[in-house]
């Protein structure tokens, strides 16, 4: 699992049937300082989250297991809404803005 911030939403009218009703969100993985880590990606929001929220996501096969239908073509899923992270004594999460 990785830490990430939701930066936007992705809307698709036509999609694979097993993905009906699952929100897709554009997320930016973060490192332990809250700085960006790697490329942005699209993830299924299994847990309700919105732009600006700090989240954790799981990638790979486990992402599909988190979805209501487990055989779906998904490689990243948001599995938790993160309130705060304490890292090296500093708190990241609260009041941080989407850059």
């Amino acid at each position, binding site marked *: 699992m990785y830490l990430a911030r939701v930066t936007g939403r992705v809307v698709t009218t036509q999609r694979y049937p097993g993905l009906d009703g699952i929100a897709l969100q554009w997320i930016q993985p973060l490192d332990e300082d809250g700085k960006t880590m790697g490329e942005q990606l699209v993830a299924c929001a299994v847990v309700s989250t919105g732009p600006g929220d700090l989240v954790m996501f799981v990638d790979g096969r486990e992402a599909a297991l988190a979805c209501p239908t487990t055989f779906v073509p998904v490689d990243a899923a948001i599995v938790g809404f*993160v309130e705060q992270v304490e890292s090296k004594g500093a708190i990241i999460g609260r009041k941080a803005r989407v850059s």
Partner: protein
Amino acid sequence: MFLAEVLGTVVAPVQIKVLDGEKLLLVRPITPDGKRTGKTRIALDRAGAGVGDRVLVVDEGNSARGVLGNPTAAVKTLIVGVVDYVESERGRYDHRSPRIKLVAP
């Protein structure tokens, strides 16, 4: 599996069911001598680790599901051990103290 350093704690009030009641820690992969390597992750603690500990992390779904005893758990990053020391041809890297010490063989 890889060696990692526990940097902090993660508080997630809303999460999938399998994560309920589990301790989540922020970990960063390190080399035996303590240099940063790889991507920072969030791991489930199954070894009683704490902030500052050097730990052994498994990042593979089948193993994680086996440990959790749940064949459909959407979890793959698990702390499975707290590292005491690493031995190599250069000597022994002692991870029990806050600063990693190299003890020559």
